[in-house]
């Protein structure tokens, strides 16, 4: 039995990670400033208030990312023999939850507003001797809260894919939710300007459906990842082709008769074990070492792999057969 270990990220991805980190700091700074700005011009507009709460919730994913990326590469200790990689999965769960809460909060509140027929009231203020309706001032404030999100969300997605980082992906979705709700709030404010009291709540309700959908799918994926689901791609439920690649590679080794491969995600990287039935047991230790090196070279995400030679593979769904120690 042997194990493959490598530092979590190859050098070129370390650069990507630095970029992602910078982006997340930027997100935190800009979200915080948007929270302050919106608080200053906050009227009683429904979508306006939710845009504000949603900016607060929007702080959760970048903060979760930054915290997770500080701890995830710490080496294993006696108490945590598998290291701290899974903190990334936990951060994904937190971010997904924030996204989900935001969507449902928005949905419930706007439906309540619609049912109780609440008429949003927006005052005017005096600016340079002119009376100006606050609704007009809300528009640039909302635009400010929306525009950076469009860019941030867009640049984060390719980074999330390269790093196989689902927190970053959920955060990109959060940015999308962010500019969508701000857009809905702008539509709502203009609607109120036209005397359509329901425009605000209706726009928020429609947008909240999309956000809730993103929240639910991220929440589900975070949960099944924590339940040791086989690795999936960052953006969906598709099985990561890497698993199949690795299984084929092991199967194709000339000394291997049969393989049973199990992989799970621990944040950005994969842990797992492969049971192999050797055809020829001579020099088995050297063979295993060579196979592990080959597996490592396949992809950086194959991080902690144990290769165990066995006489026969366990039955489907049964207990792993008694391990044959060797090497």
């Amino acid at each position, binding site marked *: 039995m042997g194990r493959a270990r490598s530092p979590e990220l190859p050098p070129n991805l370390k650069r990507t990670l630095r970029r992602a980190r910078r982006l997340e700091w930027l997100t935190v700074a800009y979200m915080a400033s948007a929270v302050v700005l919106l608080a200053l011009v906050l009227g*009683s507009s429904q979508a306006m208030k939710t845009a504000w709460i949603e900016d607060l919730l929007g702080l959760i994913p970048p903060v979760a990312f930054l915290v997770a990326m500080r701890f995830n590469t710490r080496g294993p200790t006696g108490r945590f023999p598998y290291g701290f990689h899974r903190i990334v999965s936990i951060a994904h769960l937190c971010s997904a939850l924030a996204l989900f809460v935001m969507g449902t909060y928005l949905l419930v509140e706007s439906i309540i507003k619609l049912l109780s027929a*609440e*008429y*949003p*009231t*927006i*005052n*005017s*203020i*005096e600016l340079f001797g002119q*009376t100006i*309706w606050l*609704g*007009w001032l809300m*528009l640039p404030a909302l*635009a400010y809260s*929306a*525009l950076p999100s*469009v*860019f941030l*969300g*867009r640049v984060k*997605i*390719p980074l999330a894919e390269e790093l196989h980082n689902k927190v970053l992906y959920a955060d990109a979705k959060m940015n*999308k939710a962010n*500019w*969508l709700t701000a*857009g809905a709030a*702008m*539509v709502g404010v*203009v609607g*109120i*300007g*036209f*005397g*359509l*009291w329901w425009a605000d709540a209706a726009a928020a309700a429609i947008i909240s459906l999309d956000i809730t959908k993103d929240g639910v799918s991220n929440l589900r994926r975070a949960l099944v990842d924590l339940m040791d689901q086989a690795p999936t791609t960052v*953006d969906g439920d598709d099985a990561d082709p890497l698993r199949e690649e690795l299984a084929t590679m092991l199967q194709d080794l000339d000394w291997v008769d049969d393989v049973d491969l199990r992989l799970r995600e621990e944040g950005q990287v994969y842990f797992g074990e492969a049971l192999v039935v050797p055809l020829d047991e001579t020099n088995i230790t050297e063979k295993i070492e060579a196979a592990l090196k080959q597996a490592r070279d396949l992809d950086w995400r194959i991080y902690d792999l144990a290769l165990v030679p066995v006489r026969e593979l366990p039955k489907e769904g049964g207990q792993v057969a008694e391990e044959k120690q060797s090497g």
Partner: protein
Amino acid sequence: MHGYAFTGWRDLRLFLLALLTIMATGCEFPQDPRGTLERVQDGTMRVGIVDNDPWAQMEKERASGVEVELLKDFAEDLGAKISFIPGTTPELLEAARQAEIDVLIGGFTSTSPGVSEGKEAGVTGSYLTTHSVVGVRPGAPTLNDLSGREIAVERIDATAALLKQEDAVPVLVHDLSTTDLPVAAYEWQLKEWGFEPTSIELPEEQHVMAVPLGENGWLVELERFLRANRAEAKALLREETS
């Protein structure tokens, strides 16, 4: 996969363009969901009155007070007739919710319970800021600190509440101008009644009016009028309280 952001960006630009167009052409914005402004301009402005001297009161079908006079001018500007509906705050807030009155007055301030929260009715920005000063009779020892001191008031109202906040003891008297106790009143009243103002000023009160929720065009029109008539409001208050 990254396409959504691109389309979003383009949509957003179109959206901003549309907004600018609306803003450039939109002098009559915002509009009212229930058309209050339009209706009042050809007809009658219905004003709900809660008795609160010197701001608004009803006596034998005749309304008077600072806010009444202001709204009479406003109605004149709009070419509208004006009618007054007396009632209590809860009654008239309910009427405002049903859009059965167009304005609600009664000396409300930015801290008046029921009104200032903006839950039952929309609240205008403050059109007048006042503050009371504590005055003493000439010869009486001057006051530096209110705590524990008896201060005369004519009614248990917002001024009395402010006095309590400062730990003073408000005492109800029939006529402020003849009492020997220290009083809390406007500066010009102190002068007129022969009190000497002390350095103790009560916190400022921001005076507001209320309108039915969501009638933003009407609200903005009223706010515009009140802003233009701040000096008028101040003069009316002096007149009513002297």
